[in-house]
């Protein structure tokens, strides 16, 4: 009986203790999450609301003043310069996503499957290093390489080949975008590939699949989410990039980021620039949503 009552007391104690633990458990993660949530609220959500409000303001004497007018939206959305810049930016970012994946995937496969595990961290570290160096500096370096009197044309001239204009257009822009995105995408894909169950690949091989069939039907579906993440990352980074269009393509033609700066330079038109900014955010949101949609379809 005593034992029973002891057990009862114990069970009572037990029944209360977990509730304390649960409360503790609720409070602690919330406390941890609070600073980043506050940060995001202060420096993303609030500025976004302000940016949206700014799109309805007017500019008087080179100064944005609060108002509620639709003029900025009508002017920007109806402007052929904006429409062309939007189409060009989407085109360039999409092309960059494709090119980057095509170049990064083989490199990631080699890193994940062919390189000795001992050497993998070193090579991954080498990939990370450029991410921490100045992007502006790397882009300027490409000016030296691609210019009419640059490294490549110097080699061409010694081979008797006529020099080629590589700066000032889509080619140079794509080079700039690759400089920005390639290390990041190789890393994303490498980590995706490292997570692939190799026994599945071996099983497919053992069951008679040729290497290209293993690649298309087993490997690629296994890293589908990684590819989606990589594509989304490239699109987002390039869609808003200002450095490569400015330094490598000579704003020829302008992308949306260049158009934002042009709009501010001419008459301090911050509200119109805000309209372009909001449209860019909407597009990035759309791409993220599409990526999420494709990713969740795969899970089902």
């Amino acid at each position, binding site marked *: 009986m005593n034992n029973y009552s002891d057990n009862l007391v114990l069970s009572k104690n037990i029944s209360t203790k977990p509730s304390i633990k649960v409360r503790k458990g609720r409070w602690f993660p919330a406390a941890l999450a609070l600073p980043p949530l506050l940060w995001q609220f202060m420096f993303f959500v*609030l500025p976004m609301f302000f940016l949206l409000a700014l799109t309805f303001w007017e500019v008087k004497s080179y100064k944005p003043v609060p108002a509620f007018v639709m003029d900025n939206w009508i002017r920007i959305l109806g402007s052929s310069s904006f429409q062309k810049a939007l189409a060009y930016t989407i085109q360039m970012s999409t092309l960059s996503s494709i090119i980057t994946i095509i170049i990064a995937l083989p490199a990631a496969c080699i890193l994940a499957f062919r390189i000795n595990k001992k050497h993998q961290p070193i090579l991954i570290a080498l990939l990370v290093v450029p991410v921490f160096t100045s992007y502006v500096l790397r882009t300027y370096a490409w000016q030296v390489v691609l*210019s009419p009197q640059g490294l490549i044309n110097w080699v061409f001239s010694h081979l008797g080949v006529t020099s080629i204009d590589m700066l000032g257009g889509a080619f140079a822009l794509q080079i700039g975008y690759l400089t920005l995105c390639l290390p990041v995408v190789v890393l994303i894909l490498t980590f995706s590939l490292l997570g692939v169950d190799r026994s599945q690949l071996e099983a497919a091989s053992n069951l008679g699949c040729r290497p290209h069939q293993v690649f298309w039907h087993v490997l690629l579906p296994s890293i589908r989410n990684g590819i989606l993440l990589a594509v989304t990352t490239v699109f987002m980074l390039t869609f808003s990039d200002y450095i490569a269009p400015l330094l490598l393509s000579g704003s020829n033609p302008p992308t949306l980021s260049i158009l934002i700066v042009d709009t501010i330079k*001419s008459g301090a038109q911050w509200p119109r620039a805000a309209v372009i900014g909001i449209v860019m955010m909407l597009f990035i949101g759309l791409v993220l949503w599409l990526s999420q949609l494709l990713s969740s379809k795969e899970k089902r």
Partner: protein
Amino acid sequence: MGATAAVAPYSNFAYSDSPRVLNYLAWPGNADPYLIAEFEKAHNVKVRIKEYVGGDQMLALLHQAPPGSFDVVMADAEYMHLLKEADFLQKLNPDDYPLDDYWPEFQEFPLHWFDGDLYSVMTDFGYLGLSYNTEVFRPEEVESYDVMLSDKAKGKVGFFDFYLPSMGCVSLAAGNKTPFDLSLAEFDLLSNKLMSLRGQASGFYTIADIFSSFSNRQATLIPGIGEWITLGLRESGVPVDTIIPNEGGLQWTESMSILKSSPKQDLARKFIQWTTSPKGQALMATKPDNKKSIPSKAGWELLNKTMPDEAELLRMQLNAPNVIDEFRTKKIAYRQLPSNQSIETWNDLWTDFKSA
């Protein structure tokens, strides 16, 4: 909070109300110790500069900063009437400044006087025409802006990404004698000429990129710039020169004014007096990063006496063909804001041109 955020890009200048600090709003490089060290030492003050790039930014800064934030503003002549209309400028006493030392052409510079009153004093100027790579084009080939449409120039015409000088020169190329004072038909001529050049463009450059694109031959012709770019490049061994084509060129003019709201009117006046003195002018002309022409004849004389090589390089020799001769050819128009169309209309055309 909204308004604060809106002006944030312009409000990071911590102006000082100390009587020992002169708050100066100017294009980059104008508080170079080369120019101001002697003034600072003589008056035991510090010149604190807020740099801007482009007249629109200068106007935005002045409109958004609290009154009294700046004591002196250096501005391009074409923005002077906007500064006057906004009531920013203090009327100046011409007797306070050595205008008699100036070349006669610049003693009463029209864009600085309003209703017979002086509001700004010219400090330096230069011409804008057609700059070219001398290894690609011979001088006789670039006597007309039409060279920009030649096969040799295809994909090699760079544009300074500032609508005013670039479109001004294209306006001259289109046959408009008064490049900024255009009727509707003349504006159409400008528009057509501009669009005809789109296929020739190599890019649209910031000042820094003009230097690099000329150096690496990405561009071999650039309208709307001048010796303020090509002189420095030539000294570095880049084969470039500037010509005022037969259709004409533009003159840019920088000048200094005292802000009406400045609590340091006396110090501001002394600073302008220093800059327009013969010594200040000679230093202004020979500033290492950006050499300019100066309006003070006394400054020329000092320059020829103390730095004859620089005087020759800057074509400011008194007894040889010089930059004043070019002004007297009547081929030079003042760079101004458009008079019959809005700034917005010109800006829109420039943006359309870039996107075409």
